[in-house]
């Protein structure tokens, strides 16, 4: 187990692995946060009276998106990395199975899939958490507003983080991402159904 974790940590030290993992994490986390806004507003508008039920629906969405994130990236990266290895093997005229490059690719694939799965779980579970306090600290209305607020805050954080690695203004980049959460909430309210 320790050597397995060490291998994952070693894979994370490589910039190319970090870069791809970051994309999957942010992209799927973005999906998760917007999904949670849709679930919370939709649940409130459809008159669900129990916060725990909304939280359970959100957890269902988190499981679905998390599994999708891990599974799809696992398969995508398997295909991409096999193709890359095949290109190098063709140029080398030799088999590279069980070499360091093969092991590095396997480690990179695991990190990519893991980060892809963690993104939507964070993006859904945190915004859904205010519904756990419905009935004690919050009403359904305030829990829904708090849920949207948490989702927008997560989106803002994603944007601000991306800004720090690309030397943009973190306020502008964060606001641009956060706006998507507000837009989804408004669309849920104004669109029929």
């Amino acid at each position, binding site marked *: 187990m320790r050597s397995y974790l060490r291998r994952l940590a070693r894979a994370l030290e490589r910039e190319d692995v970090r870069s791809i993992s970051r994309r999957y994490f942010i992209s799927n986390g973005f999906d998760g946060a917007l999904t949670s806004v849709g679930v919370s507003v939709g649940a409130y508008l459809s008159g669900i009276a129990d916060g725990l039920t909304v939280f359970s629906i959100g957890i269902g969405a988190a499981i679905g998106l998390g599994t999708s994130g891990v599974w799809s990236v696992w398969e995508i990266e398997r295909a991409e990395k096999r193709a890359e290895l095949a290109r*190098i093997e*063709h*140029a*080398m*005229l*030799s088999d590279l199975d069980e*070499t*360091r*490059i093969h092991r*590095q690719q396997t480690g990179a694939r695991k990190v990519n899939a893991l980060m892809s799965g963690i993104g939507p779980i964070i993006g859904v579970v945190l915004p859904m958490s205010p519904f756990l306090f419905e009935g004690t600290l919050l009403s359904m209305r305030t829990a829904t507003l708090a849920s949207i607020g948490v989702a927008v805050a997560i989106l803002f954080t994603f944007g601000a983080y991306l800004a720090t690695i690309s030397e943009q203004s973190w306020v502008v980049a964060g606001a641009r991402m956060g706006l998507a959460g507000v837009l989804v909430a408004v669309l849920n309210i104004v669109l029929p159904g």
Partner: protein
Amino acid sequence: MVTARRLVLDLLKPYEPDVVTFADAVAGIDGVTGVNVVLVETDKEVQTVKMTVEGDPIQVEIVYETLEDLGAAVHSIDEVVCGDRIVEQSKTPQD
């Protein structure tokens, strides 16, 4: 196990791991006292490098295993020096 004092190898390797990793990995083998890697040619997916290894003595099989593990192919052994001391090639009339 075959041992040598100096080994000069012509290698074909992928871009990754880079030459620094190659040199460091071979330098870490027991008995190796120094490694020099020179880039000879760069192609689309691979690089040809000349690796000079010196040691006291070099365990040749372990050097090959390390290079294989790094994904390199030994194209040719361009120079080997064995024995108690390093002998440079001598001049002949043909030279």
